[in-house]
């Protein structure tokens, strides 16, 4: 069960990554599109965290989910504040849309689980999701970003998500197979 979920998750992420690279080749993502994708990516993790708080009774899982809610909200608020200051607004795009579609599928999978099986699937998804997001932010978004302040904020976001990735990895280890 665990392996199946992980594989389907990885496939979804690869599809998104494919969409992202294709877009970049067609002239690249602009800052407003990157901002939209990064914001959506944060919202998606907040939604996963809300599911965990609804379903999990595990203290470590709940503490991790609370941190995801708190941190992703803070980073997204900082992004909105910067966009407002720059007089810009996020621009919807196919990458954001495919991210949202694969996240909806993942939410349905998670909601079908409970107890220890849910905890392990949530933790494994958090690890895979943060690995994927970090790779994209570091390898694609930061190099592509044009505005210096926006690039800096992406760096702050990456530092935050890397801490989450480490935290998720520890959680996966603690929950075991």
């Amino acid at each position, binding site marked *: 069960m665990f392996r199946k979920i992980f594989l389907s998750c990885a496939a979804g992420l690869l599809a998104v990554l494919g969409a992202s690279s294709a877009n970049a080749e067609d002239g690249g993502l602009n800052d407003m599109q990157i901002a939209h994708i990064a914001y959506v990516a944060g919202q998606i993790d907040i939604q996963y965290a809300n599911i965990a708080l609804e379903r999990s009774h595990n203290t470590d899982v709940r503490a991790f989910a609370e941190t995801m809610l708190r941190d992703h909200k*803070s980073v997204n608020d900082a992004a909105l504040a910067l966009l407002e200051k720059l007089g810009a607004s996020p621009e919807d795009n196919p990458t954001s849309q495919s991210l949202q579609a694969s996240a909806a599928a993942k939410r349905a999978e998670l909601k079908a689980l409970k107890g220890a099986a849910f905890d392990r699937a949530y933790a494994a998804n958090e690890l895979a999701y943060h690995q994927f997001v970090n790779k994209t932010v570091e390898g694609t978004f930061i190099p592509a970003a044009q505005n210096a302040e926006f690039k800096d904020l992406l760096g*702050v976001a990456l530092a935050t998500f890397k801490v989450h990735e480490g935290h998720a990895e520890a959680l996966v280890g603690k929950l075991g197979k």
Partner: protein
Amino acid sequence: MASLGVKVMRPGLWIGLGVMIAGGVLSLATSAAAETHVVEMRGFEFFPAEVNVAIGDTIVWVNKDVVPHTATAGDGAWDSGLMETGDEFSLVVEDTVNVGDYVCTFHPTMVGVISVD
């Protein structure tokens, strides 16, 4: 050192009182020279990670990150609670009860140490 009088009752209090009574003059001297040490929460680390203090000194944590943090004693003896960006939290190091390892309860990899001369 008047703040020692309002310290919550803990085993360490008796050590603290003993130090105060035995070394009253020294305590006053220490108090007069009390320093403030600033620890920044920055990039998911405490800077500096180890702060060396004297009894009576004050430690001030400042959150320089975008996300909230805490500074919380390993034994739970003191806790800043949630610190938003820009928030500060002060701790007067009253006696040895307060020293040792501390963490951010939100980010378990964020650890710091208070050591006393």
